[in-house]
């Protein structure tokens, strides 16, 4: 068996994944601060942060980018 280095449990690794034409996925985040400085707690293992600016649940994605014309999407 090959030994795989493990992160200590308290290590804080946050990973951001940009989805083409869609949100930014955040893994390992604890909270997101929006444009107005309000703090939003992360309550699930992966969250989707809005990138089109049109979500009704800012800072979270609510799928609204799919209703926009391609030119308005974040690419």
């Amino acid at each position, binding site marked *: 068996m090959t030994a795989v280095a493990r992160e200590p449990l308290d290590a804080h690794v946050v990973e951001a994944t940009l989805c083409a034409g869609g949100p930014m*996925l955040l893994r390992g985040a604890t909270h997101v601060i929006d444009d107005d400085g309000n703090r939003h707690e992360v*309550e699930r293992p992966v*969250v989707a942060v809005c990138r089109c600016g049109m979500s009704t649940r800012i800072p979270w*994605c*609510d*799928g609204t980018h799919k209703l926009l014309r391609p030119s308005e999407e974040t690419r």
Partner: protein
Amino acid sequence: MKLPRHRGPLSSAVFKRMLGSRDAESAPLRVDASWPDPIDDADLQVTLWALYELHYRSFEDVDEAWEWCPELLAVREQLEAQFERALRDEVRSHVDTVVGATGDLADRLFALTDSFEGPSLAEHIERHATREQVREFLLHKSIYQLKEADPHTWVVPRLEPDIKAHLVELQFDEYGDGQPARVHQTLYAHTLAGAGLEATYGAYVDAVPATTLALSNAMSLFGLHRRLRAAALGHLGAVEATSSIPCRRYAAGIRRTGFSDDVAFFFDEHVEADAVHEQLALRGICAELVKAAPDLEADVVFGASACLALDARFATRLLNAWHNQDHVTPPPPYDAQVPA
């Protein structure tokens, strides 16, 4: 839950057998019928639903030993063959179009879910549905939502480790992120209770038509066969990619017709959860699966298309009835005593 009522000669024969002892001597069950529209046949769909249920939570009046009985599995196989053939026939043109197109598979699947033809149940619920139509919609959805995520969980051990990790990450959220009160099945039970409907697992199986049972049976078909694992994941992708925006509309319709935030909460939760899950399912799971095994692409698209086609049949059925001031399944009176 008890075994459902039979809906025709097939379910009558199969259920009679299931209610007896497995050891009892009996003439062997035979299925020699063929159905012109297996998707819309209540006798076939309720039989399949009950045979699948042996693998989930089963029935208090049925011996657990029936689960792996070759005689019942042989019946199930024959029904599944007809159901699967009907599903493949129904969506063949969509599968050919998507598989024949070029570009990133996740983008093609998003395009498929955005453009699939069918009436919008969500738009009707948001703007026009009466309170009783909203309750009827919730009643039909109970058949699947009370076992939400379970059919896709069957697929986990059949996948390579990388895809498995992505699927379990998504399913962990479906099962409440380690918090029993947040399990989506439990959230749906609260929605039902708040809308004056029975929240018990399987409570409305006897009341709904084949079209509603078929939605749930397609997932069990895909989930229980390793051969169809790619279809199960494509199905999951389509469920997730057609959830966020509709759930926002369902929640708005639920509040518009006077129900409380408690009733809408299940749908509120799915707006944000499924905006995450659709990316995980289509990009992290379906596209990655096919990258490693390109011959699975057609089945991913088949599973996604089957989900969309069955949803379209369901929406058409409900909207047609509602258009004629009728119900497909009239919900029980709101003030009726709802058993705990």
